[in-house]
C-alpha cells in the first residue's frame, strides 16, 4: 500500500478531551477566516474537486499535528504546487515569482452568494437500477484499497442492512483520483453496535455510513 490516510479516525484511541465551544466562537485566530476564504476561493477556480481536496488533506504526513485550517492550507499548497500554480518559493517570498497558470474561472465577489447557494450537488441521473433495496443485508468490502476511499476502517468487512437508497452519486474514489465521476448508487448502511465493536458495545447502539454500491456485496438471507 502506498496510499496512507491519516484521517480515518473512527473507533481509534485518541487521547484528549472533547471541548465544547460557544456558538459565537467561529474562529480562533485572525488568520483562520482568511484561510477559509482562500480555500473556498481557490476551490472556486475549478482546479480540483472536493474529493481530490480531501485526499490531499488526509495524506499529509503531519496531519495529526496540524490544526484544521493548517491542514486545509497545506493541502491547498500541495494541490497548487502539483499544478504549477503556486510554488513554495513564492509563498516564502510572499510575492509572485513565476508566471501564472490559466485557471478555469475566478470566483468574483458578486458571484459568491449565488455560488454558495447553488453548491455542488453530487447526485446524478440514474442510469441503472439500484442493486440493493431497503432492508437488505449487505457486507462491506473487507480489503483496503490503495487510493482515497470513503469506507471507514471500522466499517470494513461488516454486515449491515440497507436503510436508505439515496440515488446515484459521484463516486468519491474515482473522482479523487481525477478518473471521472463514475456515479454509483449510494446507500445508507446501518450496523448494530455489536457488529462493529463486539460484546462491549453500548446496548442498542446503531451506526450508519453512507456507502457506494461497489463497497457492498449481498449477504444471503
Amino acid at each position: 500500500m502506498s496510499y496512507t490516510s491519516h484521517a480515518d479516525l473512527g473507533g481509534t484511541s485518541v487521547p484528549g478531551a472533547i471541548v465544547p465551544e460557544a456558538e459565537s466562537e467561529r474562529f480562533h485566530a485572525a488568520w483562520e477566516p482568511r484561510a477559509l476564504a482562500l480555500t473556498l476561493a481557490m476551490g472556486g477556480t475549478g482546479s480540483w474537486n472536493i474529493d481530490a481536496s480531501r485526499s490531499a488533506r488526509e495524506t499529509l504526513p503531519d496531519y495529526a499535528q496540524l490544526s484544521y485550517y493548517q491542514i486545509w492550507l497545506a493541502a491547498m499548497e500541495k494541490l497548487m504546487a502539483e499544478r504549477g500554480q503556486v510554488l513554495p518559493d513564492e509563498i516564502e517570498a510572499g510575492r509572485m515569482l513565476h508566471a501564472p497558470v490559466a485557471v478555469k474561472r475566478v470566483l468574483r465577489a458578486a458571484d459568491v452568494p449565488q455560488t454558495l447557494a447553488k453548491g455542488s450537488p453530487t447526485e446524478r441521473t440514474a442510469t441503472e437500477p439500484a442493486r440493493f433495496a431497503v432492508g437488505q443485508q449487505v457486507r462491506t468490502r473487507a480489503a483496503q484499497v490503495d487510493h482515497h476511499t470513503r469506507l471507514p476502517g471500522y466499517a470494513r468487512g461488516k454486515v449491515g442492512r440497507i436503510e436508505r437508497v439515496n440515488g446515484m452519486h459521484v463516486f468519491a474514489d474515482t473522482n479523487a483520483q481525477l478518473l471521472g465521476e463514475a456515479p454509483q448508487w449510494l446507500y445508507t448502511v446501518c450496523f448494530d453496535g455489536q457488529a462493529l465493536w463486539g460484546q462491549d458495545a453500548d446496548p442498542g447502539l446503531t451506526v450508519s455510513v453512507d456507502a457506494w454500491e461497489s463497497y457492498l456485496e449481498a449477504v444471503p438471507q
Partner: protein
Amino acid sequence: MKSEDSPMESSICDRAASMCHMAHEHHDHDGHDHEHGDEHSDIGPMDLRVRALETVLTQKGYIDPVALDVLIDTYQTRIGPRNGARVVARAWVDADFADWLARDATAAIASLGFTGRQGEHMAAVFNDADQHHMVVCTLCSCYPWPVLGLPPTWYKSAPYRSRAVRDPRGVLAEFGVQLPASTAIRVWDSTAELRYLVIPRRPEGTEDWSEEALAELVTRDSMIGTGLARQPGAAR
C-alpha cells in the same frame, strides 16, 4: 511573542469572534495575531503564510480579494446555527412541515431559504424517547453548512471523530448530557455528500410558544446530537 499580545486582548478575542473578525480587517496590525494558549507558537508564521498566499494568489489573478471578504462575512454573519434553529422550530409547530422534512429534507429546508454548499443533499433525523441521533464525520469534517454554519473545533477534532461512533454515551457525558438507558443511540457517520440535521425533542411546557421563541431553545449542539434543546427558563 509580541508586546501587544497581552492577556487582556486574548480574553477579549476568546469571548467574541467578532473581535477576531475585526482583527483580520486590519492587516497591518501585526500585534493582534494572538492565538489560544497552546497554539501560541503558531501565531506569527501562520499569519505571514496566509498573507503571503493571499498576495501571491491575487497577483496571479486566481482570486478576487474582495470575494474573500464576502466569503468571510457570509460565514461570520449570515450562515450559522440560527438557520437550523428555524428549521427545527418550524418542524415543532407544523406537522406537515415535519413530515416534509422527514421525506425530503433538502426541499423542505430550501423552502426556508437554506441551500447550497455542504448542504446540497440533506437528511433530517428526529429524536424521540426511544432513540437519540448523533452526527459525526469520522473521515474529515462533513457538516451541514447551510443550516449550521461552520463546524465547531471539537466536531473536527480527533477525540470526537474517534469516539462518537464507538462510545456516543461517553461523548454525551463530556457535553454534560445523560440519556436514560432505555434511549438507544443512533450515530450517523457522514461518509458521502449527505448531510444530517438532528431534530431535537421539543421541550415540555412549550405548547403555546411561538415559532420564534421556540427557535431560541434550539442549540447548535442539539442539532448535531451532542446536546438537547434548552428547557424553558434554563440559563443560556
